[in-house]
Each structure stands twice: as structure tokens, then as C-alpha cells.
């Protein structure tokens, strides 16, 4: 009743092809943006920013990048952690070595370093796919682990191996409060998400999806697999690299190579699977889920056990987290391989016909 598209006729292809063709969707998204940019800074506590909102925004950006590669182009990647690392250390080197380098260009340069790295380690995708490609991306991951641990040049030869940044500012405004950090990351997320959505619904997006669905047929209708796959790697690693820079600079402040280990890669992959492969929104939902889940379990499980009169320690909670994680992955793959995004779409579909059943 509220969500009907009745009466919303499109008289031009342009109108038909816009990102949010249904008026109610447009209103919803505008409200969401309003809440995100204006409401949240007033309402959220420091803890919420540091523990939930900022990591969520940055991880959503990274998940967006991973989704482009894995969800839209079908190239499985277990090396996302490495792309984040290259983006972070790349940005760091530009920031620390070039005098007066502003923050945003440094992050973008980090992203471009990640792009180069991504294209290089994406070359195997021209020869192999599936598990074999996963192994190739793991090679990228472990190589990056080693590179930032042992090649001292990247860390400016610090003895401890960990690096840090401080005094971040944007056009003269210092980024020291949680709110300012959150707004900075959020702005980047919105801009990049918009550009990604444009790519995905345009010609290159269709090429990516064609490669994903059947790459032999794609070649026959004139799509060049090399260009499509490498462009997917390039765009994806750029986004993941920028996210890595944000993660290091804004969320962590100071970091070591282990911040971008293979666990991070798995985490990103799970975000994309649970959120929904091949859907921009899926990345957001998955990131929210994975960021919130440990915190939720940390609060909820002891409470639940308390009701039963049992005390449980944090180790038990962390084990339970692993088990619930694993079980959820399997459950999603069995029940709804298209993830939360599909559930969301089904919900919208129900809304469209409400109050009728179908």
C-alpha cells in the first residue's frame, strides 16, 4: 500500500535507468543519508563511534571493493588483506616522506599502489579460476605479509616494525574527534559507493557479470576477458586500498603488518557472502553484520548464560563466536546463497504487494 509504484510511469530511458527508480526508495535513501550525516553525530556515543560506526563505515567500503571482484566479476579472492595493506603502507609512505602531503591525496595514492599490486596479482585470473585463483590470491596475501614485515624501507626503517600517523587534517580542519573521523570516512564511502554503482549498472558492470556467468560466451560476443578481469581487479583493489588506508590512519592510528593478515581477508569474504554477492547493498549489510556480531555476542551470551545461572569467560565467548560464524556461513550458503541482500529484496517485494499476499 505504501510501497506501490502505481502511477510512477517512466517516459524516458534515462528515468527508467536511474539508480532508484521508485520514488519511495529515493525518499528512503535521502532520509537514511540525513540520519547518517546529521542525526548520528548528535545521537551516538563515543563508544558507538569507535567500536561500531567507524569500523563499519570503513569495512563497508572494503566490502564494496571485494564485492566488485568476487560478487560482480566472479573472481574469488582471498588476498583482500594484502590490498588493504598495500593501500595503507602506500598512503603512509606518501604521507610521511613527501613534505606537507595532504591526507586525501595520500590515501588516493595508496589506493593507486593497491591498484598496481592488484593488477599484477590479478594476472593469474587470465589463466585459472575458482580454487586455483584463490591460491594465487593467497600468494599475494603472504607475499604482502612478508614484504611489510621484512623489507624495512616500507616502514621507514623503524626498529619495532610498527608505524603510526598523527595530526590528520582535512582542508585545515583537524580530524581528531570521533565525529569528524566518522564524517570523513562516511563521505568517502558515499562518493565511492555512488561511483561504484554507476560502474556496475553501466557497460563495464555488464562485462563483469558476463565474465562471472559464462566467460567463454562472453568472449564470443566481443567482450575481452583480459580487460574485464583486470579492470575488476584494478577497481576493486583501488577501493580496498583506500579502505586500508582509512583503516590504518583513522581507525588504528598505529599499526603493524599483522593488522592486514589472512584473517582480514577471510573476514571480508564472509561479509560479502553473508551480505550478498553481486549487490552494492550487500556489502553494507554484511559489514554491519560482521562488525556488530562480536559485540552483540559479547553482551548477549554472558547475559543469556546469566539467566541460566552460568558464568562464562571471554574465551568461551570467542570460541562461540567462531562456531556461530562458521555455522552462519554454512547456513547462509544452504538457505540463501544470495545473502542478506536477497532477504532485503524479498522483504521489499512483500512490501510492494502489501496488504495483499501476492
Amino acid at each position, binding site marked *: 500500500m505504501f510501497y506501490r509504484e502505481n502511477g510512477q510511469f517512466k517516459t524516458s530511458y534515462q528515468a527508467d535507468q536511474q539508480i532508484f527508480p521508485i520514488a519511495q526508495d529515493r525518499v528512503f535513501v535521502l532520509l537514511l543519508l540525513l540520519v547518517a550525516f546529521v542525526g548520528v553525530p548528535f545521537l551516538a556515543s563515543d563508544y558507538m563511534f569507535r567500536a561500531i560506526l567507524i569500523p563499519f563505515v570503513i569495512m563497508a567500503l572494503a566490502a564494496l571493493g571485494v564485492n566488485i571482484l568476487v560478487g560482480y566479476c*566472479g573472481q*574469488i579472492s582471498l588476498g583482500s588483506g594484502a590490498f588493504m595493506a598495500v593501500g595503507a603502507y602506500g598512503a603512509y609512505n606518501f604521507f610521511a616522506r613527501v613534505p606537507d602531503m595532504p591526507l586525501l591525496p595520500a590515501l588516493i595514492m595508496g589506493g593507486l599502489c593497491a591498484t598496481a599490486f592488484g593488477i599484477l596479482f590479478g*594476472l*593469474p585470473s587470465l*589463466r*585459472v579460476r*575458482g*580454487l*586455483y585463483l*584463490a*591460491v*594465487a590470491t*593467497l*600468494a599475494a596475501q*603472504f*607475499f604482502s*605479509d*612478508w614484504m611489510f*614485515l*621484512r*623489507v*624495512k624501507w616500507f616502514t621507514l626503517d623503524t626498529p619495532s616494525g610498527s608505524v603510526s600517523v598523527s595530526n590528520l587534517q582535512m582542508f585545515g580542519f583537524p580530524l581528531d574527534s570521533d565525529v569528524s573521523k566518522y564524517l570523513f570516512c562516511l563521505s568517502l564511502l558515499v562518493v565511492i559507493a555512488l561511483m561504484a554503482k554507476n560502474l556496475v549498472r553501466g557497460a563495464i558492470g555488464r562485462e563483469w557479470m558476463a565474465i562471472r556467468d559464462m566467460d*567463454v*560466451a562472453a568472449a564470443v560476443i566481443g567482450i575481452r576477458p583480459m580487460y574485464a578481469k583486470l579492470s575488476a581487479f584494478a577497481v576493486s583493489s583501488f577501493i580496498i586500498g583506500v579502505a586500508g588506508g582509512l583503516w590504518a590512519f583513522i581507525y588504528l592510528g598505529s599499526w603493524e603488518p599483522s593488522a592486514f593478515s*589472512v584473517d582480514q581477508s*577471510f573476514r571480508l*569474504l*564472509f561479509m560479502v*557472502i553473508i551480505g550478498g554477492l553481486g549487490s552494492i547493498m550487500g556489502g553494507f549489510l554484511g559489514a554491519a553484520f560482521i562488525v556488530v556480531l562480536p559485540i552483540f555476542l559479547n553482551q548477549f551470551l554472558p547475559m543469556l548464560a546469566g539467566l541460566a545461572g552460568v558464568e562464562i569467560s571471554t*574465551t*568461551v565467548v570467542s*570460541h*562461540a*563466536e*567462531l*562456531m*556461530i*560464524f*562458521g*555455522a*552462519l*556461513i*554454512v547456513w547462509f*550458503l*544452504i538457505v540463501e*546463497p544470495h545473502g542478506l541482500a536477497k532477504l532485503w529484496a524479498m522483504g521489499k517485494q512483500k512490501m510492494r504487494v502489501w496488504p495483499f499476499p501476492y
Partner: protein
Amino acid sequence: MAFFLETLFGGLMAGMLYSLVALGFVLIYKASGVFNFAQGAMVLFAALAMARFAEWVPLFTGLSQPVLVNLIAFVLAGGVMFIVAWLIERLVLRRLVNQEGTTLLMATLGIAYFLEGLGQSIFGNDIYKIDIGMPKDPVMAFENVFQGGLLINQEDLIAALIAALLVALLSLFFQKTSTGRALRAVADDHQAAQSIGIPLNHIWVIVWCVAGVVALVAGMIWGSKLGVQFSLATIALRALPVVILGGLTSVPGAIIGGLIIGVGEKLSEVFLGPYVGGGIEIWFAYVLALLFLLVRPQGLFGEKIIDRV
């Protein structure tokens, strides 16, 4: 020269241990086309089970003779792995029968996480010892050939022998028994095997059980060497390049691939490492696998991958 040979031997032994884990991968892939990312978690789970059972058996039964205790612990752990295998087939594999490879791969990732959490919940997460009576002291050998002799690690040598024995047993099993024949049929063509009456579900349970036992042996040996701890699960990641080199469908490939990787890692670490800051072991196996993927994706002994439109 002696030093080189010592490094070589060390590499061969380490390689044998990788092969043990790689065998589990190959077995499951051969019989069901599923790549089991959870193999490492299974090794950890099995090793934890065995280590803890070895501790608990004396408490519950009063037996204390090491060989007997270890044997009972092994059998109990084996039983646990059978149950795990059966549950995996029942709850997960059966529901994902027609899905594509990537979905199944990610499902096994989920199983891996689950097993890691479960194992540590049930059996605890300290570092445990497995003591199966392996001699820990290295021994000097070939003293008459090389001056001073070669330092050989006895434990590794025995581990290598056990691994070789296991491979021989598995090869016999596949070639000579009717179940082995059925497994080879299923590996070749699921539908054809089904149409001649081979029960797919039973076969998969059997295969995962065998893989579970292989995981147990691997866990026992690695655990005896390193102690049973969480990092054992990452062994799956170390063994992955082995199957790429050897070929995902080849049992001898897993052995040869393991040996090559083991030797390559050790040699490159010792002779190349100092020039680039050390730590080459982190990526050597993977970059080698990467090169193979570019040149010969099916590995040394695997079947060629063909696309049909």
C-alpha cells in the same frame, strides 16, 4: 656439502609432513570434487581429541602404560572423526549437492571456523602435548661417508616413514578393495556412479572418514613435533600449494609436491634468505604455486582442465 645434505634431508622430512595434510585434500577432492578448506581444522580437531583423550584415559581407567593409552586415545579420536565426518555429510554436503565449486569451497571455510571453535570449546585451548614415544634427539649418521656425520632428526625420519606407510595403505585401498573402486568411480563421474547403484551419500561419508583419519595421523605427528595448539589449523594454508604443484587429483602428486615444497622452502630460506631479509618461508611455497598456475595449472600429475561450451 654435508650442510647442504642436512638441509635437504630436513626439507624432505618437512615436505613429508605437508604431504600428510595434502593427502586429505586430494582424497576428498578426488571423490567428491569438493575442495575441503576445513582439512586444517580437522587436523587440529583430531589432534586436540587425541591429546586430551590421552590425558583423560589414565584418569578414568587407571591405565598408565603409554603405548596402550596412546592406542586407546587414537581409536577414540578416530571415532570422533567418524562422527564429525558423518555430521558434515548429513548437515552440510547433502544440502549443497548441486551447487557450484565456489559455494562448496566457502561452505568448507564455514565448517573450518566451526570446527576450530568447537574443538577448543570441548577440548580446551592451551597447548597440549602428544607423546607417542618419538625419539626427540637428533642422531649423527653416515659418519664414515662425511666428516663429522650428518645431523638427522629421528622424529622427522619416523614421521616420514609413517607417512609413506599411510600412502601405501591408501593406494592399496583404492586399487584393491571394492570400496576403493567405488570411490574411484564416484571421482570420475557422480551421475554415472549413481546410475550403477553406488550410494553417493555413503561414499562421501566414507571418504570424509578416511580424510578424518588422515587428519588424525597428520595431527598426531605434527602435534608430537610442535605441540597441539591453535596454529595447527593454519597448516591447511601451508599445504595448499602442495596440491597445486602435485595436482588436485593425484595421491602421488601430493607426496611429490610436498617433498618439492619442503625442500624448496628449506633450501631457499638457508641459501637465499640472508640476501632479502629472511623469512622467505612465508611466501616461497605460494609463489612457486603461482608460477605453476601460470604455466601448468593442473600441476605435475593432475588431469587437464577442459572448458566445454
